[in-house]
C-alpha cells in the first residue's frame, strides 16, 4: 500500500488493542447508508507511471522559458538563482508546520524575521507580516485594514482604475458582504489626479498601484498628504512591484500607510499562476490592525535571543469573529524563496536586476516606437512594462507572433480585455530574461505583421 507502513500482523495487534476485530468497526458512527460508496476514481499507478503521465502533460504546454515571452500583467518571467530551489527543497523547511513551537522552529521563525526586515527596507515601511496568498488578496486585506482602522464607521474606498483589474475584482469579492462603497474605477480613463479628489471624510482609504497596471510609475510626491488632508487621515495604500523597488524610491518614503503587492518577481517561477506570495507592510501605529502572522524577536528563559509568532491576540484562533482576518497560515515556503532570493542577490544584485529590467524595457520600447503603425502610449516613466498601441487587435497580433512567424513568440497582454478604451493596446513586459536577440526578433516580428497585413492561413 502506498505510503502506509503497516503489516497484516501489526494491523491485527492494533485492532486487538483497540478492542475491535475489523477495520470497518472503527466507522460505526457513520450512518450505514453513507458508508463505503464507490467513488469512480482511476486505478492506482506507480511512481514510474505517474511521472510518465506528468511528463506528457508538461510537454503538452508551451513552456514560456523555451520561447521569447513578453507577457506580464501581474506575473513575470524572471531569473531564479539555483540556490533558491536548493534551499526550499530541504525537508527541514518544507516538511515543517507553522512554527507554533518556537524551541524547535527557529529556522523558519528567523527566516520570516529576516524576510520582514528586508521587505520593510525594500518598501520603506515599518512593519511587515509573514506574507499573504498573493498580491490580489493582500490588496483586499489592505482595504479591510483601512476599514478596520476607522472601526467600520467609514464605508467608502477609492480604488484607482489603474490597479490590476484582478486585484480590483478580488477586493469586490472579499468585501461583498461588508456594505462598502467602492468608487474610482467606474471610469477606466480617470487619471490619478482626479481619482484622489474622490477621497473625502467618509473615505477609509485610497488604493493605487505604482508602477500601475499600465506600467507607469506614479508621481507619489505629496499624494499621501493630500489623501490624509482630504480624507481626514484616510489611508493611502500602494500596490508595488517589489523588484522595481530595487531601483525606485519606495512608497514608504512618500508617506504611504500600507504598501503591498505580489512577491512573485522575487525568485518565484511562473508556475501557471501560483503559489505566489503576497507581501504586506504598514506603519508601526497600525501593527495591531495588520492581518496574518507576524514574527517578533524576544529572549528565552536564559536570555538567549530568539523569535516567536507574536501579536496573536489579533488572530482568529483567539479572537474568533473579532479577529482582524480569518487567515491562519502564511506562504511559508514561497516567503522563504523570496528571502533566499533577496539575500543571495543582496544589495548590489537586486539593484542590477532592476536596472536590467529598466534598460531592456526601454530599449524594446525605443525600437517598437520606431516601427510604422505602432506607438508607445505611456506618458509617464515606466519600469519594465509599457503599453503599445497596435495597428490591429492584439489577439490577432499575438496569434501571428505565436503561429505565423519563424519566431514563436508569446506576445503581450491584450488591454482591451479590461479597458475598452485600450482596444488594440498591448501591455508588453520585458525582463532580464529577454536577451537583445529576443527583443530584436520581437520587434522584427511586429514589423513583419504590419508588412504582411497580419494573420492569414
Amino acid at each position, binding site marked *: 500500500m502506498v505510503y502506509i507502513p503497516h503489516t497484516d500482523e501489526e494491523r491485527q495487534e492494533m485492532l486487538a488493542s483497540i478492542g475491535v476485530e475489523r477495520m470497518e468497526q472503527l466507522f460505526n458512527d457513520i450512518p450505514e447508508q453513507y458508508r463505503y460508496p464507490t467513488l469512480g476514481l482511476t486505478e492506482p499507478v506507480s511512481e514510474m507511471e505517474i511521472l510518465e503521465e506528468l511528463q506528457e502533460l508538461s510537454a503538452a504546454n508551451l513552456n514560456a522559458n523555451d520561447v521569447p515571452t513578453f507577457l506580464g500583467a501581474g506575473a513575470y*518571467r524572471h531569473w531564479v538563482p539555483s540556490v533558491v530551489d536548493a534551499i526550499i*527543497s530541504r525537508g527541514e523547511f518544507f516538511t515543517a508546520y507553522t512554527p507554533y513551537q518556537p524551541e*524547535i522552529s527557529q529556522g523558519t521563525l528567523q527566516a520570516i524575521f529576516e524576510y520582514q526586515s528586508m521587505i520593510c527596507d525594500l518598501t520603506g515601511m515599518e512593519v511587515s507580516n509573514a506574507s499573504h496568498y498573493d498580491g490580489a488578496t493582500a490588496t483586499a486585506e489592505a482595504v479591510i485594514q483601512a476599514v478596520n482602522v476607522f472601526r467600520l464607521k467609514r464605508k467608502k474606498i477609492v480604488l484607482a482604475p489603474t490597479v490590476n483589474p484582478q486585484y480590483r475584482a478580488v477586493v469586490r469579492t472579499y468585501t461583498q458582504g461588508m456594505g462598502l462603497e467602492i468608487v474610482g474605477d467606474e471610469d477606466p480613463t480617470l487619471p490619478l489626479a482626479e481619482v484622489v479628489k474622490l477621497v473625502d471624510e467618509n473615505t477609509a482609504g485610497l488604493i493605487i498601484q505604482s508602477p500601475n497596471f499600465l506600467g507607469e510609475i506614479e508621481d507619489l510626491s505629496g499624494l499621501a498628504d493630500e489623501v490624509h488632508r482630504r480624507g481626514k487621515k484616510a489611508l493611502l495604500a500602494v500596490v508595488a512591484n517589489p523588484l522595481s523597488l530595487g531601483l525606485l524610491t519606495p512608497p514608504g518614503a512618500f508617506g504611504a500607510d500600507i504598501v503591498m503587492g505580489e512577491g512573485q518577481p522575487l525568485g518565484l517561477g511562473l508556475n501557471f499562476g501560483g503559489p505566489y506570495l503576497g507581501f504586506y507592510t504598514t506603519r508601526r501605529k497600525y501593527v495591531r490592525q495588520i492581518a496574518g502572522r507576524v514574527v517578533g524577536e524576544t529572549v528565552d528563559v536564559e536570555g538567549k535571543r530568539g523569535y516567536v509568532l507574536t501579536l496573536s491576540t489579533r488572530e482568529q484562533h483567539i479572537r474568533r469573529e473579532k479577529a482582524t482576518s480569518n487567515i491562519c497560515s502564511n506562504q511559508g515556503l514561497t516567503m522563504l524563496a523570496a528571502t533566499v532570493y533577496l539575500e543571495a542577490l543582496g544589495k548590489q544584485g537586486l539593484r542590477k536586476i532592476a536596472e536590467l529590467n529598466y534598460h531592456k524595457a526601454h530599449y524594446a520600447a525605443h525600437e517598437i516606437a520606431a516601427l510604422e503603425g505602432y506607438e508607445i502610449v505611456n506618458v509617464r516613466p515606466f519600469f519594465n512594462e509599457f503599453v503599445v498601441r497596435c495597428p490591429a487587435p492584439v489577439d490577432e497580433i499575438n496569434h501571428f507572433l505565436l503561429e505565423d512567424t519563424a519566431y514563436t513568440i508569446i506576445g503581450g497582454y491584450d488591454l482591451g480585455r479590461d479597458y475598452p478604451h485600450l482596444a488594440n493596446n498591448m501591455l508588453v513586459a520585458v525582463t532580464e530574461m529577454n536577451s537583445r536577440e529576443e527583443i530584436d526578433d520581437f520587434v522584427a516580428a511586429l514589423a513583419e505583421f504590419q508588412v504582411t497585413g497580419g494573420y492569414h492561413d
Partner: protein
Amino acid sequence: MTEPLIYELSVPGREGVKPPKLDVPPSELPAELFRAELPLPEASEVDVVRHFTHLSHLNYSLDEGMYPLGSCTMKYNPRVNEVAARMPGFTGLHPLQPEETVQGALYLMYHLQEALRKIGGFAGVTLQPAAGAHGELTGVLIMRKYQLDRGETQRDTILVPDSAHGTNPASTHMCGLRAVQVPSDERGNVDLDALQSLVGEHVVGLMLTNPNTLGLFDENIKEVVALVHGCGGLVYGDGANMNALLGVMRPGDAGIDVLHFNLHKTFSTPHGGGGPGSGPVGVVERLVDFLPGPIVAQDAELSDDEAPYFTFVMPPKSIGPVKSFWGHFGVLARAYTYIRMLGEKGLRRAAEHAVLNANYLLSRIKDVYPLPYDRICMHEFVVAGHFAAAPGVRALDIAKRLIDYGVHPPTNYFPLIVHEALMMEPTETESKQSVDAYADILLKIAEEAQTHPELLHDAPHNTPVRRMDEVRAARKPVLRYQRET
C-alpha cells in the same frame, strides 16, 4: 546553538550571485525617481547557503519524526510530488498564455476537479482558494449569495458549533454575517435541542466540522442536516478532517452542501512551514453557479474523443475571483499526483489507517490521560493534559517535555471546550513502532509529572533556545532587524 542574522554576516561591498551583463544600450535613469540607498544585506552565495543550512538545523520537521499535530494532518510528503510540481512545462507556464498553449495544465486541473468532486460527492469544484481558511471564506460567500439570489435577504446568521476552528467565526464575520455559537452535547455531538432553538429564517447556514475537532464523528449528522435544511439553511462542511473520510463517506451524500478540502492536509502536499496550502471547494448542484472562477471545463465544440480541449469558464452567478489567476497550481500538481498514485482503494486505505493509528494511540494512553469523551475516535482525538495527582502540571508542560524526547508535541489548548486539551493526530503514514514510541514517551511523561514535575516545568532542556518570553515579544514588539545608530 543559534545562527546570526544575515545582517550580522553581511560585509560591505561583498557580492552575491551575479546577474548577467547588460546587452542593450542603456537608457537614461531619471535620478529623481530612484532611491539613493538600498539597505539589503551583502553576502556571498556560500554565506547564504551556509546560513540557511544552519537555520534548517534549528527546525523540527516531519522528515525527522512524528508530528502528530491534531487537525493538521502531518502525513508524509511524498518526494515524487516535488518532482511533479517542478516539471519544466509547469514551472515555466505563464498564467495568461493562450489556452491552446496550456492544455496539459488544464487537463491536470480538470481531472483534479473531477477527482475531488467524486471524493466529496459534489456537482462542482473550484480549485482557486489558496488555503483552508480561504476555502471557508469562499464557501460562506457562496452560501450568502445563494440566499440573496433566491430573495432571502433577511438571512444574516451562520451557526457555528463551539468545537469549531476559530477560522469559522472569523470567515463568517468577513462576509458581513453574524456567527452564533451552538453548544456540544455530553457525547461531543452538536446539541440537537440547542440547534432546534437556534434555527429559523434568519439562518444562512451551519458550519459543521465532521469529524469534529474532538475527533468524533457527529452521530446526529442526519438530524443536524435535516434541521438546517428544514429552516432553509445550507450546511457547510469544514473539510479539515477529510482524512478520516476518504473513500469511507462522501460528505455530499450526507447533505453537506459546500465543503473545502485542504490539499496540504488530506492530499499530502507539504505544509512548507506555514504554506502555501490549497483549499478547493466542492458544492452541490444548486450552488454550482455561484462558484468563484474561472474553473476548467471541457469545450464540447473543440473536443473530440481523441483529444479533449479544455477551457476556462466563469460560473454565471459567481461570487467573483477569490485570488489572482487560477489557484496554487504547484500544489494542485502535487495533490493530483497523490490521488492518481493511491487511486480509489488507496485513498480508503489511507483513511482507515489514519483512524486505526489514532485509536491505537488512544488505546495505549487512555488509562493515564483523562479522556473527556470515551468513544471510538476518527483520525484524531483529544485528551486532557493534566492529572489529578500532579495539579501543577499543564498541557503546555507536557508539550514542551515531549520536545525533550525528540518528538513534536500535539496541538494544545484546542479545541477550547476541553480544559488543557491535547489533540493528537498521528496520520496513517506513521508505523506501529513510531506510534508505540510516542505512546511510551507520553506514559513516561505522565509518570514524571508526579515524580519530577520540575522536568516538565523547565522543559525543553536541550533545544537551540528554551522557553521564550512571549509576553515581552507582544508588549514591546521587535518585528524587524534594528540597525545600530
